């Protein structure tokens, strides 16, 4: 029912995501709601998240693409721009959203955020502070969490 009026853009985006997936990213729509995507992002190499498989959920609101998709981490992750509920601090999901962006570009941006945490614009104060005062130790914690929660089980 919810899928009957699916805009052509969403259908096309979905098809392209499935036929030409971006490296390290998979996104597939839920069977009963084509606006709800199950997403998996592999932890980028050379990052504390390497080797981890991170689950996210992505939802396309009614106004999409005029409004940004809603994205959230389901897997616990130790990252200064992601809070304990999995919410992500990323400009293109908020004021820098443009309808010319796509699901693919959003997920690539999230992947890039894992490679380059930005403790100067934090969502989680404690983790950001940790990152700034003792980066080595913070990276260790992130690795530990990756092993504990994102080991692909």
């Amino acid at each position, binding site marked *: 029912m919810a899928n009957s009026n699916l*805009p*052509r*853009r969403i259908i*096309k*985006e979905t098809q392209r995501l499935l036929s030409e997936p971006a490296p390290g990213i998979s996104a597939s729509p839920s069977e009963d709601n084509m606006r709800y995507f199950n997403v998996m992002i592999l932890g980028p190499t050379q990052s504390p998240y390497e080797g981890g498989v991170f689950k996210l959920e992505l939802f396309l609101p009614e*106004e999409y*693409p*005029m*409004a940004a998709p809603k994205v959230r981490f389901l897997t616990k992750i130790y990252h200064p721009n992601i809070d304990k509920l999995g919410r992500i601090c990323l400009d*293109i999901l908020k004021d*820098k959203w*443009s*309808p*010319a*962006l796509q699901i693919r*570009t959003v997920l690539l941006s999230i992947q890039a955020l894992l490679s380059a945490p930005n403790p100067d614009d934090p969502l989680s104060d404690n983790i950001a502070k940790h990152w700034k005062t003792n980066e080595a130790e913070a990276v260790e914690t992130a690795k530990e969490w990756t092993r504990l929660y994102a080991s692909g089980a």
Partner: protein
Amino acid sequence: MDSEDDMHDANDIESLDDFYSGETAMDSDDGDENYGFIDNDSDASDDSTSHRPHRQQQNYTILSDADIRQRQEEDITMISTVLSIPRVSASILLRHYNWDVSKVHDAWFADEDRVRRVVGFLEKPVHDATRNVTELTCGICFESYPRDRMHAAACGHPFCTSCWRGYIATSINDGPGCLMLRCPDPSCGAAVGQDMINVIASEEDKQKYCRYLLRSYVEDNKKTKWCPAPGCEYAVDYVMGSGNYDVTCNCSYNFCWNCTEEAHRPVDCGTVAMWILKNSAESENMNWILANSKPCPKCKRPIEKNQGCMHITCTPPCKFEFCWLCLGAWSDHGERTGGFYACNRYETAKQEGVYDEAERRREMAKNSLERYTHYYERWATNQSSRQKALQDLQQMQTVQLGKLSDKYMQPESQLKFITEAWLQIVECRRVLKWTYAYGYYLPEHEHAKRQFFEYLQGEAESGLERLHQCAEKELQCFVDDEGSQTKDFNEFRTKLAGLTTVTRNYFENLVRALENGLSDVDSHGACSRTASSKSRGGRSKPGSSRSGGGSSRGSGLDGSTHWSCEHCTYANVKSATTCGICHHHR
């Protein structure tokens, strides 16, 4: 108040009135302007003689919707002409630089390329690889359309009409940020101007955009502000660095351009901000302290004050006349009885020889809340008194002037003195109100300043009470009473006009002194106080007030550095040739 003394004063002042207005025409014009009532009844000739000069010396301009639009258009035209760019671009540029024409010029001629980059003006399209294609794919909905159904900003990134419409609508609904709209392509910063909005957006969105553009001209512009009165749509353009911030909107609201609180001259914005904060913090305590009624000091029946002046008469059989502020007998307040109008005073320090009332007040002073209450109550009472006076003024202008005109066979132009009196009352209540905020923050240890301030405030206040009483109660007799003679009415005219002038002078002195930070206090302030006390002492019963103690000291000073006005007894500095209060020649 009908005493011979008063009538005598009033007559004399009236005779001086011409002299006064000749001497200080600028001042009095300024004063009139501040009241802010556009006198719709005044005829055209009046307008040209009295109102135009005000406009020229005024340091602000009231802008209507049409005025704002016109100025905006003029600025856009100027930038467009000087920089040889389209009007739409000029508008975007001006908005970016907060509608400051000279800033736009400076930035543009300093580094045109940088400015173009920052605001998103492209010299040529960045996306023109599709010149020979008949169909294009929209970057938002991914549909293909013929070229003529696609739109692009200067950059050339094509999107279909319906996606553009959605993009623009979303941006406009998000607020004034739509004035800085850019191409939807995230890698592109090309500006999207009003020309595209007008081609693509819905009628409703176009109007919203227009509204934001107009608002931006006022809100982003450093020298204009909206009038803060509810529902008022005028803006005020202010000449920066011109001093006095008091402005009067065409809606008649009087406010401070700097802090947008209601007008509070001569008290500064900082004091007003502190006072307002204080009031909001204390308001819960105040609510019950200042319940709407007070018991009659004599018969204890509760009394609600619903008239403007502080002179309350309890209903029969009690008929006790008292002052609403201090609840003391009114007979202690008039000048004839030799008392002094002490309700502006608040003394925490113990003073010798003060009459009984002081004992009660000292009790009050023990508590800082009570000290605050003292000032707040007077501040608030003058506020409500002013509101009442405004209503009375309106009632006067709409109904009673007509009646009086018929009854005493006077043309309404001859009744202007009544309107002037009420305008004076309204303005004085406003000033008096703020002097209580001033008084609250005036340091306790500055004794000389406090005394001088309270003296000036007291003089002004008692003058105002006389004026208010006369305008309110005595005038009512003429409105109601069928038997009054035209002769009596003419006497009343003289009295009211005289009181208006005297009160204006008192308040001008008060305002001037506060604006100088009471800096005169060392030279002539102390003397004027003692001199005045002396004169009062002469008329009063000996020892009835503390003026007795000061008189001998005061008279010594008088002879050498000051002269006492024969007419009003004000102590003027020696160099003055006319009296600072009543303008009587030496």
